[in-house]
């Protein structure tokens, strides 16, 4: 359901807004990294915008703290629907090491609904890109371990025990052995 909606609504350019509600900056600069030449999210049409009013997606970083909870909520409400929320990093996803501190409310989901979680401390830029690709329907979500079946190898493998030397050259004897 969500996937179909995403594919329909967000299949073109995503404009993202990033909101740090009290994290350490680590995820922030990885998000910046994603937007710059090495990872270049702009090739997927992803653009960072300065206002939640312009955004389709909110990238949340850091745990929700007591002073920022309401500001975050308002930023979320300011976004036009349909909208997606990404919780980037361990703190946004689960509260991180601060989850029960006196000034910390906990993960982002305590304040606003979250659609996608990207774990990591901080998540690698590749992980953030993967999350975005899943969200936009470009990749399938990894929900369980995927099993691969070994297909038959078409070229002969190297079997040293089958090697024989002849006139100073090495000759393969059993080429059919796979």
């Amino acid at each position, binding site marked *: 359901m969500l996937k179909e909606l995403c594919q329909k609504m967000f299949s073109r350019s995503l404009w993202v807004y990033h909101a740090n509600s*009290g994290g350490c900056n*680590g995820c922030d600069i990885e998000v910046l990294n994603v937007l710059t030449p090495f990872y270049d999210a702009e090739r997927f049409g992803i653009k960072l915008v300065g206002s939640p009013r312009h955004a389709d997606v909110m990238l949340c970083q850091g745990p929700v703290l007591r002073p920022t909870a309401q500001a*975050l909520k308002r930023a979320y409400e300011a976004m036009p629907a349909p909208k997606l929320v990404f919780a980037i990093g361990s703190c946004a996803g689960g509260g991180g090491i601060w989850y029960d501190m006196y000034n910390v409310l906990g993960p982002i989901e305590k304040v606003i609904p979250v659609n996608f979680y990207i774990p990591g401390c901080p998540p690698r830029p590749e992980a953030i890109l993967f999350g975005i690709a899943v969200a936009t329907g470009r990749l399938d979500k990894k929900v369980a371990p995927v099993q691969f079946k070994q297909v038959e190898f078409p070229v002969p493998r190297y079997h040293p025990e089958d090697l024989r030397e002849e006139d100073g050259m090495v000759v393969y004897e059993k080429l059919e052995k796979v």
Partner: protein
Amino acid sequence: MTAQPILDAIKQKFGTAIPRADIPANNRLFVFVEPPALKPICRFLFEEQRARYVIGIGSDDRPFSGQFLVAHNFAFDPQRLLCSILTRVGPENPAVESVASVIPAANWAEREFQDLLGIQPRDHPYPKRLVLPDGWPDGVHPLRKDVPWNHCPPDYDENREFAFDEPPAGCLVVPFGPFHPTLDEPAHFRLYVEGEMVRGCEYRGFMAHRGIEKLAESVLTYNEIPMAAERICGICGCVHNVAYVQAVEQAAALAPPPRAEYIRTVMLEIERLHSHLLWVGLACHIVGFDTLFMQSFRIREPIMKAAEAISGNRKTYALCLVGGVRWEITPELKAQLRQVLDRLETEWKPVAQAVLQDRNLQIRTRGIGVTDPELVRNYGLIGPVARAAGVDIDCRRDHPYAAYDRVDFQVIVADEGDVWSRLVVRVKEVFESISIIQQCLDQMPNGPLQLSLEGELPSGRFGLSSVEAPRGESHHFVITGENNRPRRWRVRAPTYQNLQGIPAMIQDQQLADMTITLGSIDPCFSCTDRLETIDLRSGQQRVFAPEELVQLARNFRKTP
């Protein structure tokens, strides 16, 4: 001997008020004084001995000595000494004389121990709430030992509003933050604007206060804290990691093996490289020079990969343990790192040239956000902000740690004190960092990475450590304790001091220059975080307490 003459000078003047003084090492001094003498001694050090104010610390020592502990730390940069003036105050209604009227830099620190420990700074020029959120009830102080780390009072009122000042006559209010495109982190500024000119500013920050000091004192253990310390800041995490470990090592009189010291130096400089490249990129982004933003991030990426190859993570290196380091730099990694550095140097040269000769950039940044040595001294500004104003301080040289006393480097100083000078200082420091890493790789001795420690660390000892972060001096203060964890751990991040200088820097500047001025100190709110109002006209500082968020949110809707 550098500590002794200074102790003698203090004793000569205040002899009877000093029951005890410790000189654990040549470059550390702990003076215990009677509470009434605290302010005169701090004044003496600041005004007559020309010491640099570092930080004020409060600690709940009641379970051990039945009293609270207050300390003011000073640095004597030319004499290479870190000094702490400590005093004990009674358990009932603890209060000390405020030093903020003499030393403006102490303003936040005193308000912080007022919030977190309930130690009253008497006659503080602006004794309002700084750290705790607006809805937090009065009288609950989370850093006291009898308050659990996860305790939130039941009468916490999230709707309490913050009462902002009336703007000066003829001024409009422009809210800036908490979520603002140029701020990576939440912080709120309320600017008073007359036409295009900023006439005053109220600051309500400390929105990223996560309570890591409490976490360390009540949940974590000595060797878990370095990993948590790294999460203080995602950019300069390794600095906190090393500073904490060095403070504990100093308290317990441990000397890490030389190879570990070299590895620490290498990682700290790798961090400085990536942080400075990041900052140059962001600063250019703020003034609209996006090409350079992209270029510097491109150049920066191989450093991140090199750091990952050494430590297994791009930013949080998890480098130190008490008494050593965890990661080895193998010959293969050395070769790889050398390659990365060579490439960085050749790529950074044209960029540096382009930046330093760019006229648009100069027009945008010259004469903006100016500081002078007097402001630097009064507010305790540090790092590139101080060096750009011609104040020649650098912890790597002044308070050598790790292997910095064995490498050769130049402290880059500029003298105009504006945003442009800060840019120049940072661009040039990149080359120094590259050279430091290369020297370390050449000189690195073989040997163990980690001391073998036996038994518990001694308790009740004090440790101080200063580490030069990319943004300035990061200062850690540790009191060792029982149960394999410290009794008190105080972190003073560089932005804590530099942010206090912002109101003076933006006064009578154009509104459009606010972003780059703020950007130029390379603010790191997660390191610092807490709330304050500053009326620039009178130069008075005030802190704001609760009830702010609703106001904030209302303003937020009006902000584009």
